[in-house]
């Protein structure tokens, strides 16, 4: 380096040293942030498969308003809609119920979502005691044998079961195939998750070392399915669902351009079924992004010959649901984890890593 170049370097460095203190600018930038971040908040719902469908759609309706044909931009503002209870059902490819979420959409645009562990041992109306996830499958196969719509029958059976368990009337349902999440993961080019320990399990087919991963469609499904080898079984899996969906929602939001988002919406549409006469896209425009999440209170894990089941006290569930769903304008929790009043201690993955 010659003398002149050295001098130029010094001069430019001296000039750069005049820069204002970045910390002041940092706080300016933070102030400039939009106060309401419906997407981020909605991503936080992350409780069940079907909710991700909404997480995909909400950004279109609430934030971008730029996806023709998905949400009517002239829709009336939130605040006019009556409260609705919606059952969100995540299904695997053989119509087993992988996740069940009862959500209450408040008239003020807030949402409260309660996860119901699929292994909950509950009374299935007309059948007797059984695992929550058997309600759908049983009715589905019975209906198909008679040439009826298996999906409708399955969803209705699950609706009845959840109504009986929670003492809450269900107005609508939406079911989503978990396979849709594989398609979504592929469509967004992979979903990032972080594993605290290596995951290997022949049932789900998962085989990943510890650390951060970008999951493709097939890996996503294995990740979402794995229960065996997890300390808390299905409860761990609910946590995985939440983590996965947050990450997926992040990727969806990052997708940016309308064409890509429309592609994602199509993937969602192809994988979501609802009761006749209800359009889950309606959901999007009624929500303001405030979401509280929780899991119903469950008792001990009971190992039986037919696998693990979770003891559930229906009275406790009803009390919990009534309290959780009661309109609580005083303390609308906007934190990602909501207020898990009366729920079992679920490890909150603060570092984004899961077991």
């Amino acid at each position, binding site marked *: 380096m010659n003398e*002149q170049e050295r001098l130029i370097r010094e001069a430019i460095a001296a000039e750069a040293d005049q820069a204002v203190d970045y910390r002041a600018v940092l706080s300016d*930038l933070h102030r400039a942030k939009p106060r309401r971040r419906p997407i981020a908040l909605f991503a936080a719902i992350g409780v069940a498969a079907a909710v991700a469908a909404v997480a995909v759609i909400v950004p279109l309706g609430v934030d971008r308003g730029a996806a023709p044909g998905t949400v009517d931009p002239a829709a009336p503002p939130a605040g006019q809609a009556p409260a609705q209870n919606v059952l969100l059902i995540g299904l695997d490819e053989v119509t087993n119920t992988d996740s069940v979420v009862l959500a209450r959409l408040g008239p003020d645009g807030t949402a409260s979502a309660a996860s119901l562990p699929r292994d909950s041992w509950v009374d299935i109306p007309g059948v007797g005691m059984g695992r929550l996830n058997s309600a759908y499958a049983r009715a589905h196969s019975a209906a198909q044998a008679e040439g009826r719509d298996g999906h409708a029958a399955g969803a209705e059976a699950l609706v009845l079961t959840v109504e009986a368990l929670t003492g809450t009337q269900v107005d609508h349902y939406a079911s989503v195939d978990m396979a849709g999440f594989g398609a979504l993961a592929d469509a967004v080019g992979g979903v990032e998750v972080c594993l605290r320990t290596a995951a290997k399990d022949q049932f789900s087919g998962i085989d990943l070392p510890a650390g951060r991963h970008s999951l493709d469609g097939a890996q996503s499904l294995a990740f979402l399915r794995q229960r065996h080898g997890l300390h808390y079984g299905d409860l761990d899996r609910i946590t995985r669902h939440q983590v996965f969906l947050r990450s997926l929602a992040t990727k969806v*939001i990052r997708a940016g351009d309308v064409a890509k988002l429309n592609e994602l919406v199509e993937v969602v549409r192809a994988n979501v079924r609802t009761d006749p006469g209800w359009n889950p896209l309606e959901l999007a425009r009624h929500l303001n992004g405030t979401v509280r999440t929780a899991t119903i209170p469950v008792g001990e894990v009971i190992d039986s010959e037919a696998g693990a089941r979770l003891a559930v006290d229906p009275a406790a569930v009803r009390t919990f649901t009534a309290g959780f769903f009661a309109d609580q304008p005083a303390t609308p929790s906007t934190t990602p984890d909501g207020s898990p009043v009366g729920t079992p201690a679920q490890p909150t993955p603060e570092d984004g890593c899961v077991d």
Partner: protein
Amino acid sequence: MPDDDYDQFVTERLDRLLRYATALTCDKHLAQDIVQDVLLRARQRWGRIGEMAAPYLYVKRMVTNEFLSWRRRKARRDVSSTHATLDELAPMVADHAVRHAERDAMRARIAVLPRKQRAALVLRYYEDSTDTEIARILGCTEGTVRSHISRALQKLRVNENIPSEVLR
């Protein structure tokens, strides 16, 4: 959360971006305006920017473009008085002060270079960018980069005045 990645980027790179922009503009307030504008815009498009192999390079390009096309022209520092002062002081002062003065003189000369030349210079001598990177950031060919830099060096040399001669 969606903004975490962006927040991290800003926290890690803000200082460097501000310094870079200040070196470009020779005006810390203008630099601040540019960097803030750019970062707010980058946040809206973070979906794509964050996915890139080198987000910093992209944001730096945004800052550079903003500088090159900046319309609100702010009063440029009065550089001529600096020169006059230096000329008077040069023969009298100690080595340390001479170097300091010499550096300030160079700063002043850089500050009046055409913007593209200045950008190329800052990228090479402050950011240590390769010609390929500079070409990408400035949106021109490597040949043009080299021509910007050689012209800038030429001007800075032509304008060389007493202090540097004293040292040699």
